[in-house]
């Protein structure tokens, strides 16, 4: 190999190396697996794990919300997919919903998850009563408020959405 070739190779190694190091320090992966995931996000090839998502959806429909969230977490470790995050937030709502009072901690987690979803998101799942991010967010926010209407005995007849 000629010296010129080493020089070209050297410049390429330094450019790629410094870019990779800058990416690591910017994205802060915690494990080697996260390095791969964050790398796929950076180059635009990130995809949700379909098998885990389906497992999560099945658990969600059987009211096994903790298992559902766990599967959704594995399906979308970067928390970037709107549909997965919508189901995660919905699972917080359904688990935290109560006829007399709601679980504030779960509703707060639901709202936190809603912060990662595009406000214009609309679900195509016919089994869900609330199909838009706005509806779910409103329900979670209302669930956290304590108003005079909360003491209305007719509220005991309300149904979970």
């Amino acid at each position, binding site marked *: 190999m000629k010296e010129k070739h080493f020089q070209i190779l050297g*410049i390429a190694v330094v450019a790629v190396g*410094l870019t990779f190091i800058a990416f690591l*320090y910017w994205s802060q992966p915690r494990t080697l697996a996260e390095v791969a995931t964050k790398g796929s996000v950076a180059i635009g090839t990130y995809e949700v794990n379909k098998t885990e998502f389906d497992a999560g959806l099945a658990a969600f429909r059987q009211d096994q919300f903790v298992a559902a969230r766990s599967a959704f977490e594995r399906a979308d470790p970067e928390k970037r997919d709107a549909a997965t995050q919508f189901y995660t937030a919905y699972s917080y709502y359904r688990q935290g919903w109560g006829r007399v009072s709601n679980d504030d901690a779960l509703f707060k987690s639901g709202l936190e998850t809603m912060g990662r979803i595009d406000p214009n998101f609309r679900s195509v799942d016919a089994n869900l009563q609330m199909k838009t991010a706005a509806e779910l967010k409103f329900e979670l926010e209302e669930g956290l408020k304590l108003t005079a209407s909360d003491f209305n005995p007719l509220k005991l007849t309300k149904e979970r959405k």
Partner: protein
Amino acid sequence: MDEALEKPEIVTDIALVEPRVGPSASVIYLVLPAILLAVTLLGGLRLGVADNAFIFLKPALTCLVFAAVTMVLFVRSGMVAVDGWLASENSGLRNAANAAVLLTLFTALVQLYNSLLPEQGLPFWIVGFCFFWTLWNNLFAEFDPKRLLRSMAALFAMAFAVRWLFLANLTPETSGSWIERILQNPTQEAFTWLLDIPRYSAGTGYIQFFTLALFLLGLYLLPRSASRD
């Protein structure tokens, strides 16, 4: 006359006149940047105490200042001859390749200081002041490359001992509740609180030792000039 002809020293003299050949192009443009990039990568790497998760610590501004001063020291002592790396008579490619090597030297230095400086609190200021004092004094001292290399090796080794042997051993590596940690290691817990030292897994010290060793190897391999003659 005959005695003079038999003297073998003449051969030795000829050997000394031969031009000295520096490191090969592969060492300058591939091995050296690879070593210095490894230092850049590992210098800010810490392992979390609970789960050994990666923590990539970005360097403080002080690290950049110290690295810049150290680069000036390298140039002043003749360890790095700027005109041997970057010159108008060189081709653009050669200058770019040499600049890339010098850039990795700078980033490696930044990350080495990131490795050796405590992250925060009183230890950061004390060790930082010691670095500043030493570098400032060295700036006005007369150095040759060998002496500077020895001096830098000694400085970094001492800083490593303070950071990763002394200060790291003042913090307990156990995780758990505050009460549990106080009951298990009251003295270490008190030092951790007083000195504001972050907790890392034991593996971090080993990684930083490897980083320092790699950097010193890189300095040893670094030629004064990229020109081979």
